[in-house]
């Protein structure tokens, strides 16, 4: 039996440009004019958690804070609300990244669910203190859906790193 729950594959190093591109696409997804869709997953939070778990030296709390600020301005939310929640989310993901990667994808998703729910709780708490209305429990469905997308996100976001760098007939792997 393998030490890991899944076989590990040696990945090529990630490019900083690719991380930036995934953040841009996630932000674009979040800014699409969704009408009153309940349980819309927060893609920026999912991508952020992914890169914090997989590349904790490339992404960190500063980038999380900056993405949160962009989300606040784009959404017309309280300035600093997403920045606060994302900074805490990034910190939790970085602290847990060695643990999370031991598990299979669906168990990783369970970890991510807890992290995303915690960040949503933070946002609700902040807004209730600042005088907002409680958006209803359906608000938290978004985290469940986002966590369910974790295996798919892992597959898609690691695609460029799985590609062989250059074909070589004599290379053993």
């Amino acid at each position: 039996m393998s030490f890991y729950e899944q076989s590990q594959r040696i990945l090529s190093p990630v490019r900083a440009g690719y991380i930036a591109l995934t953040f841009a696409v996630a932000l674009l997804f979040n800014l699409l004019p969704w009408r009153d869709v309940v349980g819309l997953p927060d893609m920026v939070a999912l991508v952020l958690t992914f890169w914090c778990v997989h590349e904790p030296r490339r992404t960190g709390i500063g980038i999380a804070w900056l993405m949160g600020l962009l989300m606040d301005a784009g959404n017309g939310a309280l300035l600093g609300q997403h920045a606060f929640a994302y900074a805490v989310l990034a910190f939790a993901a970085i602290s847990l990244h060695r643990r999370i990667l031991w598990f299979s994808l669906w168990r990783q998703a369970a970890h991510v669910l807890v992290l995303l729910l915690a960040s949503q709780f933070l946002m609700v708490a902040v807004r209730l203190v600042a005088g907002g209305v409680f958006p209803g429990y359906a608000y938290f469905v978004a985290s469940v859906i986002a966590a369910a997308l974790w295996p798919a996100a892992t597959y898609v976001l690691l695609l460029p790193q799985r590609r062989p760098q250059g074909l070589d007939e004599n290379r053993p792997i």
Partner: protein
Amino acid sequence: MDYQPPPFFSRGPAPLVRLGFFVSLAVLLMVLDARFRYAESLRQVVALLVYPFQRTALAPVELFGATSEFFTTRVALMRENDELKAKRLLAANDLLTLQALRAENAQLRRLLDARERLPRKSILAEILYQGRDPFSRKVVLDKGSQQGIQAGQAVIDDIGVIGQVTRVHLLLSEVTLVTDKEQRTPVQVVRNGLRAIIYGGGDRGMLDLSNMAANADVQADDVLVTSGIDGTYPAGLPVAKVSRIERDTASFAKITCVPTAGTDRNRQVLVLSREAILPPPPVEPEPGASGLSKQKARQKARTSPGAG
């Protein structure tokens, strides 16, 4: 002598330190934004950074709208045409009476020597999307300070008041709906002229007529219109309709209303500019001059019908 690790092991400050720094920065921003409204200029800058993303995100929706408009069937157009004709006939009747009433109103106003109501400037805008912030009720319009929108202006659609512009960006503006918890609108009951202030944020999408005595003369199905007292909203625009009244509470009645205008029905809205000239506040009449002014008023009342 101190021993430093080689530079390639250096990873900057510890995560906990970074977390502390960024969390305190975020908390500082939130306090500045919520309590003192100092963060607006920073918000403007960040919003400008996000603006290309917002426009790009809207592109597929606009494309879909354009194509579906192009393929509208002829039957649908003809039906709409017939409906519009019928509506115009109905409206023509009202329009004729309106002209007569307007003339009469103008004459009466001249008689009263009242200031003629200035028509307000208005800007046609389009709702881009509903605000994504689930904690407040807002919509975003496609016009901003470049097109002359200012914070505080009233926003209406063809049936009533939608809300008020609360934040203006360079090319976008945010409208807080009357149903938002933080939004208050001065209203008046049409039936008896009772003035009140209507609050948003009752049940989902409802309005509350708060601070009304338990025996206040309000009935179900009463229509509430803007009173026009604050100068922000023109008088007489429909705001809401009373739907339920509970009078068994201790001293205040709990009155729930349904908003008249719909934000999900129309995409086009009208942004009304604030009244340019507000009348000066009334001056206390001097005791000696009161008799004189009364005499003058009487004189005016006597002469003006002849002039008109």
